[in-house]
C-alpha cells in the first residue's frame, strides 16, 4: 500500500515544504530501529553463520540511517533549520515472532523498502538531484541483497511451503499491528478530548488548590508520605 501511495504521489511528498526532511528523518529512524532488531536477533540466534549475517545487515542499516540523517542535516543546514528527531523503536521482533517469523517480517520489509526507494530514486532522477538519487541507488543495492538473503534463509529454515506460510503470517501480523496502531491513535484522540473536558471541569478545583494548597516553600520537616 505504502509503495502504491509513493508511486501515485510520485514527487509530491518531496515538493511539499518540509516534507522531504520529514521523509528522510523517518527513513533514518526506520533504519536505526531495524538496526536494533537485527542486533537483538544476532544476540538470540543459535547459529554463528546467521549471527554474522544479521550483524552485517545491522551494519548496513546503521550506514543507511547515517546517510539519511546526514542528508537531512545537510538540507536543514541549507535552509537554516536545526534539530532532528532521534527517537527509535525497538520491538524485539525476534523474541516475539521466532526466527522464521522474524525473517519473514524482515524479508517483507526489505522488499517493500526496495520498491519504495526505487520510486524515490526515480523521482530524484527526474528532478536532476543526482546526489540524492545516488544515495538511494547505493542503499537500493544493499536492500536487494537483504531481500535476497532473508528470502534464502527463510526457505532454508522453513522449506518452500513453510516460507510461504511464514510470509502470509507476517502479512497478517503486520495488518494486525497496523490495526492496533490505528486503534491506539483513535483512543489517544478520544482521551485527549476527554482530558480537555476534564481540565475545563476542574477549573474550580484548580482555583481552590491554588488558594488552599499552594506549592510548598522552604524546609518541610514532616517525612515524605
Amino acid at each position: 500500500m505504502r509503495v502504491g501511495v509513493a508511486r501515485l504521489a510520485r514527487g509530491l511528498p518531496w515538493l511539499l515544504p518540509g516534507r522531504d526532511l520529514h521523509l528522510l528523518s523517518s527513513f533514518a529512524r526506520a533504519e536505526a530501529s531495524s538496526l536494533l532488531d537485527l542486533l537483538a536477533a544476532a544476540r538470540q540466534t543459535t547459529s554463528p553463520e546467521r549471527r554474522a549475517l544479521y550483524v552485517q545487515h545491522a551494519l548496513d542499516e546503521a550506514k543507511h540511517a547515517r546517510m539519511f540523517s546526514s542528508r537531512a542535516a545537510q538540507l536543514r543546514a541549507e535552509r537554516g533549520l536545526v534539530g532532528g528527531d532521534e527517537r527509535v523503536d525497538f520491538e524485539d521482533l525476534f523474541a516475539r515472532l521466532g526466527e522464521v517469523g522474524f525473517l519473514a517480517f524482515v524479508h517483507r520489509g526489505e522488499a517493500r523498502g526496495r520498491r519504495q526507494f526505487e520510486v524515490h530514486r526515480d523521482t530524484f532522477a527526474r528532478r536532476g538531484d543526482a546526489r540524492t538519487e545516488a544515495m538511494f541507488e547505493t542503499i537500493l543495492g544493499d536492500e536487494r541483497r537483504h531481500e535476497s538473503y532473508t528470502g534464502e534463509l527463510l526457505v532454508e529454515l522453513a522449506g518452500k511451503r513453510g516460507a510461504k506460510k511464514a510470509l502470509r503470517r507476517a502479512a497478517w501480523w503486520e495488518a494486525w499491528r497496523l490495526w492496533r496502531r490505528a486503534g491506539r491513535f483513535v483512543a489517544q484522540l478520544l482521551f485527549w478530548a476527554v482530558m480537555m473536558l476534564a481540565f475545563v471541569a476542574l477549573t474550580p478545583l484548580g482555583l481552590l488548590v491554588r488558594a488552599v494548597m499552594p506549592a510548598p516553600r522552604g524546609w518541610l520537616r514532616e517525612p515524605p508520605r
Partner: protein
Amino acid sequence: MAAILGISCHYHDAAATLVVDGKLVAAVHEERLSRVKNDASVPLRAAAACLRIGGIPVTALDHVAYYENPYGKLERVLLSLLRAFPASLRQFPRAIGGQLGDKLWIVDQLAEGLRVERKRVVLGDHHRSHAAASFYPSPFASAAVLTVDGVGEETSTAIWRAGPDGLICLERLGFPHSLGLFYAALTAWLGFAVNEGEYKVMGLAAFGKPRFADEMSRLLKISSDGSFELGLEYFAHTYDSALGFSPRMETLLGPRRMPGRPWALGEIDDQRYADVAASAQAALETALLALARRAREITGETALCVGGGVALNAVANRRLLAESGFSRVFVQPAAGDAGGALGAALDLAVSRGEPRMAPLVTAALGDTADPAEAASLAEALGFRARRVDDRAATAAALLEAGRVVAWVQGRFEWGPRALGQRSILALPQDASVRDRLNRVIKEREPFRPFAPAVSDEKAAQLFDGAPNDMTPFMTTVCTVRPEHAHALTAVRHVDGTARVQTVGAHGVLAPLLAEIERRALPVVLNTSLNGPGEPIVAGAVDAVAFFARHPVDALLVEDVLIERAL
C-alpha cells in the same frame, strides 16, 4: 534471609538490581541490553539478566522492590497541574495520560512481566531509594545523606541521617523548587537534550566565565538556612515539562541556543553560551554547598553521601568535599534514577533485618561477554581474531604504538561511566588522540573532556586530592598536578582538572596500568565504549558490531584480540 529484586523505570534510565541475603549480586541498566539509550521501559531484560547472574529462579524471589510510589506521584502531578491552571492546558492530557495509562500500573506490570505474585511487589519512596542507594554501599558506619534530583513523588531535595538504625529524613524541599529542574532548564536552553546533556553543560562550563551571577540569582534564590527557591516565572516545568524554561528566561538570558548547531567556542555567541553554562554551574555549586552545610549542621556527621541525578555533577562533588565541612564524601556510580533500583532493594533488605551490604568496591555488576562468540563473529565478518597470552601486555604494546583500543573485560559496569570494563583506551600524552576520539569515534562536541584511569598508588603524585571515596567510581574531579600537565594533555580539561578513576590492585585495569608503568606514567585515557547516541557496549555481539562501525584500531574481548585484516 531473602532475595530481593530492585526495579526503577518509567522516567529515564530503567534498571534492575538483585540483592541476596543483604549482598549486592547484580545491577544492570536496561539500556545496556535493549540498546535503546536511556531506555525507561519496565526493565524485564535487566531483571532477567540479574536473576541469571545470581542463579536465582524467579520463584525464589521474596520481593520485588519498586523505587517509588506511583500514587504519590500522580497526586503531585495532578496538584501541580491544577496549581498551574490554565497554563497547564497542553501538558494536562499528556501528563495524566502517562500516569493513568502506564505508570500507575507498575505493580501489575511487574507482577505480570516477571511472573511473580502481586503481593510480592513492594513500593518504595523515590528519595528514600536514592538515600539508601547512596548510604548503604558507602564505607561509612553513619553519615549525613543529601538527595538532590529533579523530583520524586513530591520531594526534590532531602537531608537524611543514616546509621545503624537506618535512614531518617530530617528536612526536605518540595516540587516545584528543584535543583535538578533548574539545571535541566538551562541544559534545554543551551540546546542539549534534558536527562542526557547535563554532562555537556558541566564540560562546557569550564570554557566560560560565571559573569551572569545576577541573572542566576533571579533563577535560583538561596536562603541562609540552606534552602532554595526557583524564580518560577522563568521556568515551565509546572506546565510544560518538555521545554522546562519559560519565555522570560529568554528575555533574561537571551535567545536559546538551537539544538544541533556545531559549536565554535572562539565566536562571541558561543562564548556567551559557555559563560551562561559557567554561571549555572557556579549557582548549582553554591546551592549544593549551602545544602551540604545545612546537612552538616543538623546531623553533626563528618561524612556525607550524595544521591539523586544532581550527584552525578562531578565538578560540584569536588567542591562538596573541599568546602562543605565534611571530611569524606561518597557518591555511588549510578547516583541517578537507575540507582533507585539499588536503593529500593537495599532499603527493603535492611528493613527486613538483613545485614547491610559490604562497602561497594567495584561497579562491575553486570553480565560478561563471551570471547569465543566475539572471535567467531569477528572472523565471519572478515576481521582477524586470535587468542593472546597476556592481554595487559598486548594492550599496552598497542597503546604505546599510538593505537586506540576497545577493551571488553569482565562484567559490565553499573552506572553511566565506563570504569574499565567496557572502555575505549588510549595513552593520555597525545592531544591529537583526544581530537581523533572526539571527532571520528565518539563524534561529540569538541569541548568534552576525556577521563584518566590511574593506579591508586600513584594517583596522589599526579592529581591533587586523589584518591578519595569517589575516585574509584569517577564521580568527582581532581586537579592535575602542574608538573604532569604536559604528560596528561589528552585527559586534562581546560580548567586543569580531570575526572579521575583510581584503580585498586584488584581492578580490571590494574595489570594494564602496571604494564604501562614500566615505560611511562601509569595512566590511560578511558572513555566509554559506545558511539554517539548509543548505550555502552554490553555483550560480544555489541562489541564486535561497535568495532565494525567505528575506527578503533583493535578490540580486546577478554583474551581475544580482534584487528582489521591487512
